[in-house]
């Protein structure tokens, strides 16, 4: 297996290099200097700023420098937009993103799989139709509407009615103080639970329909009929046989979302003022902060490649028919 992993990593190195090359090239199509200096920049000020930002250097040199720094995980280059290094901008934003996306992914995957199973087990019945109608309704409404209504009613209206603030309208505090776990949980719930719930509601619609389709497809397979003919109970058929065989598409779906777990949920982070990776990436693009954009996209590309390789490994673990070679 390890030789397979090493080979896959090596195959993906050129892909990574091309991604970074395209990214850096695209970023430099428009000159970022004028935007930084605003409406009253003189030609001299623009030239001085370009020099300061290192944009006067040849592109291959900038490309090689970035790769060299990235390979050494050296993120000490200064952000162009903030009075910090790239590392100081990027790394503190990982935990806030994970605070939302990991619980949201776990909850939505867990709940959706259960609902998918229930719907598939009751295929064609009223309960199946009701669940699927709920899922479609969930998908029909824009993410933004959930956020705005969630903020208005979940945070503001509820607080007004109860006379105490359950969920924050917006904001984030570092909750990772492990010495006082209850406090940590309280702080996390105050700032993050509402965005998590909104995220779950939104993604559940898509996930439930997907998982139901996967399970229904498996439910019509020969091995399920055989299991039933052998006298397996419905629960055993569902969890022991069917769910196990449905794991490949389920793993694929979850693994595809993994890089986005790290990069966060842009809309949620912006509206709830959560200083996560999504918001950091968005800000860096808007503010033409190339060092930060490059670092985040390169990290994302690396995580995406890693999660693809990990997916293949997991296939082999959950399905004995799959052999890594």
């Amino acid at each position, binding site marked *: 297996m390890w030789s397979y992993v090493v080979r896959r990593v090596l195959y993906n190195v050129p892909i990574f290099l091309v991604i970074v090359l395209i990214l850096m090239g695209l970023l430099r199509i428009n000159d970022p200097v004028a935007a930084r200096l605003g*409406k009253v920049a003189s030609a001299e000020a623009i030239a001085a700023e370009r020099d300061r930002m290192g944009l006067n250097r040849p592109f291959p040199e900038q490309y090689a420098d970035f790769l060299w720094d990235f390979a050494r995980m050296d993120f000490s280059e200064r952000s162009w937009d903030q009075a910090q290094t790239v590392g100081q901008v990027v790394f503190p934003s990982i935990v806030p993103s994970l605070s939302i996306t990991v619980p949201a992914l776990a909850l939505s995957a867990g709940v959706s799989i259960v609902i998918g199973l229930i719907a598939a087990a009751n295929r064609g019945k009223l309960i199946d139709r009701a669940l699927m109608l709920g899922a479609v309704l969930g998908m029909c409404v824009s993410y933004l509407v959930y956020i705005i209504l969630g903020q208005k009613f979940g945070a503001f209206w509820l607080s007004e009615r109860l006379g105490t603030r359950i969920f924050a309208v917006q904001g984030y505090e570092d909750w990772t103080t492990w010495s006082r776990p209850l406090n940590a949980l309280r702080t996390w719930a105050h700032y993050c639970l509402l965005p998590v719930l909104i995220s779950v509601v939104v993604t559940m619609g898509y996930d439930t329909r997907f998982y139901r389709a996967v399970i229904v497809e498996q439910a019509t397979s020969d091995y399920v009929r055989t299991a039933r003919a052998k006298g397996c109970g419905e629960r055993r058929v569902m969890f022991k046989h069917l769910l196990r065989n449905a794991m490949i598409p389920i793993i694929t779906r979850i693994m595809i979302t993994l890089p986005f777990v790290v990069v966060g949920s842009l809309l949620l982070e912006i509206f709830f003022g959560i200083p996560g990776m999504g918001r950091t990436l968005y800000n860096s693009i808007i503010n033409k902060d190339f060092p930060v954009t490059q670092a985040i996209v390169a990290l994302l590309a690396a995580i995406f490649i890693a999660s693809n390789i990990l997916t293949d490994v997991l296939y082999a673990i959950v399905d004995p028919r799959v052999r890594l070679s």
Partner: protein
Amino acid sequence: MSRRASIAAWMVTFVAAIACASAQPAAKTIALPMRTDGPKSLDPAAGSTTYDNMAAVQFYETLLQVCYYDESRFEPLLLAELPERLDDGKRYRFRLKEGVRFHDDACFPGGRGRAVNSDDVFYSWKRLADKRNGLKNWWLLEDTIVGLDAFKEAQNAALDAGGSFDYDAPVEGFVRVSDLEFEVVLTKPVFRFLWVLTMFQSSVVPREAVERYGQDFASRPVGTGPFVLREWVPKQKLVADRNPNYHDCTYPEASLWSEEDRAAGLAEAAGQRLPIADRIEFTMYVPDQPVWLEFQQGTLGYIELPFDYFSQAFNPRTKRMNADLRRRGVGYRAVPQLDMIFRAFNMDDPVVGGYTEDRKKLRKAISLAMDLQEFNDAFYSGLCVVYDGPIPPGLDGHPQGGRVAGAPRGPDLELARRYLAEAGYPDGQGLPTIRFYTSQGGNNADQVELLRRQLGRIGVRIDVQLVDFSTLIELVNKRSAPMFSFAWLTDYPDAENNLALFYGPNESPGSNHWNYKNPEFDAMYEQAVVMGPGPERTALYERMRDMVIDDCPMVGSLARTRYYLTQPWLKNARPTERFWSWFKYLDVDESKR
């Protein structure tokens, strides 16, 4: 206990636990909003945006400050008295206030902030000439102080040659008299120089801190300001505590306030030592909804009411605050901006540019087809002031009633069509589609649809390009945008700042984005720039204004009025956008919180 009751009990406990997480703020702490992702730097020499200003002035101070009780005037801040004007305004003598010390910081011997002296002022201004600081604020002192431009050239050349920027090199116009006294010799008696001394970029910083912290100086402010930095989480929050060593500065005397302000209770704190609050906490808000909801929750001391929420707080027709907010004791202040929202023409463009009669008539036809009041009603809740020319309300040279006789103020479709025909494009025939650039932000996508419809009425077609702000600036700087739009917020309350936008030598990539070149205008500008306020200068401003209106390099203008809401517990609040150090005057009435 039944299972259901047990679940209910757990939920109640959980909700109560979460509620406890939102702790009440400590006494005399004021939560304030920043409607953006916040400052990019706390270094005055590197700052330029409103939010850089809002943050930096809590920690740094300038020689002069805008008066809280009258924003059209300035008063000494780090000075003992207003500077003495010598040689008909070509030389100023300054005397620093005694006992002003920098914040206590490890960069000073023993960690105790030292007294501010004349060299600190010279050093701070020289930093604006250092290209390593970006030169973005150099325009404030360019061609102003004798020898400073030469100093800049020489030192930056030394940097380019691999040497160092020598801050000890002399500047002829900086004359040190003593630790607390100095003189500045100007190249010409430009009146705006004193206004520049109220701008945060000219704040006084200690050399020790800059040298010790290097690039980190941008996030480690060491100034003389009323607050010291406690915590800055970029793009999230900034917390500042009262500076315990703040110099002797008091709330303005009662006699200085207008009767209206006195009636509003603004003079009650007269004579109190500043700052009054123990702590100020800025939170950054990008979307509008959270700031509006948090104000309603009573968390934020004040907010600038977003235009989209105006109708929720006020009756749009009567501009009367709604009953709920009135009942809660919420106060408000309408703050007129020194603002100029315009649609501009690139005067170098082969189609819409040029100074011949037919080109002027084309631009005037476009101007006459536009209905600025419709923009005002549709997009600004009718809160803007529509006026002719580039001088906003409140400044010398602003036309009476906002109107100038003969100005191409629309809508006048008949005259627009006539001018268009006289320009050689009857009903727009033969006129190529004009490319119009504006930024993607706000409601610009809707605004351009209205513009397209208004111009379509006379047969003028525009090709709208919604681009991000940086692209817009780049295109304008390269003179590639035939027609474009953005706004200009006047830096200091003198129309000279707006008229400088039409001064030939400031053409792109400078602030003269329309590349307007008129030798007569330039000569008048050079004359006006060295004049102090008075009827003679106002007359000159008016002639320059009319010249711009006649040549029509722009269609405009609109000046926004922003509504600020204040909580009943926030005392001494008189929100303004002319300067941002007024948080030091704020107080809290805990009994009303």
